[in-house]
């Protein structure tokens, strides 16, 4: 069965610091992988996605993620966090079936 694990429920980082949000998945074949961001009271916005090819993918707002098949991971990174990045982040996996989402990681940014 497909599943996504986001080990960190809540992360706090200082503005300007680097960020890495972890995502591990279980999927029977080569998956499509996604990261979404949800700001308070908003719907989910797609940050980036991986289908195939280059394992390092660039997204919006300066985010990137790296697909590591050997580790079944798709971690999200940003070199320098801005206060506006405070939100909930969801990793998702799927291909020919509806996406399965992780439970999310809440990011807080402090001055």
């Amino acid at each position, binding site marked *: 069965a497909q599943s996504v694990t986001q080990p960190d429920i809540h992360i706090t980082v200082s503005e300007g610091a680097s960020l890495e949000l972890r995502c591990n998945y279980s999927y029977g074949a080569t998956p499509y992988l996604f990261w979404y961001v949800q700001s308070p009271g908003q719907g989910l916005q797609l940050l980036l996605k991986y289908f195939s090819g280059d394992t390092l993918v660039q997204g919006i707002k300066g985010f990137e993620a790296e697909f590591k098949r050997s580790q079944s991971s798709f971690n999200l990174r940003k070199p320098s966090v801005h206060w506006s990045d405070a939100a909930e982040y969801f990793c998702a996996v799927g291909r020919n079936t509806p996406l399965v989402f992780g*439970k999310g990681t809440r990011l807080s940014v402090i001055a």
Partner: protein
Amino acid sequence: GAGVSQSPSNKVTEKGKDVELRCDPISGHTALYWYRQSLGQGLEFLIYFQGNSAPDKSGLPSDRFSAERTGGSVSTLTIQRTQQEDSAVYLCASSDRDSLNYGYTFGSGTRLTVV
């Protein structure tokens, strides 16, 4: 339309009443998905439409939940005899499964509160 539209944005209902939640997907998107988001629980898949048919309704929690899609466009999620545990944010998404730019576009959701 330009995005996925959901209505109402907020709904407060009394336990035992029926509610209807509406989703208007992006024009031309053939696939439509309903998810439920409860506090701390992430997104729970409910049902998926391809055109007007629902190949996967495995996530509907009980027979009180039903959904339909007409004209390959608007979808309605109906919850009968609402219970307090139905309180959640109901999210709708649409996608063009045949597009190389495949990905879900989400609406802002309907926050349902059962009192």
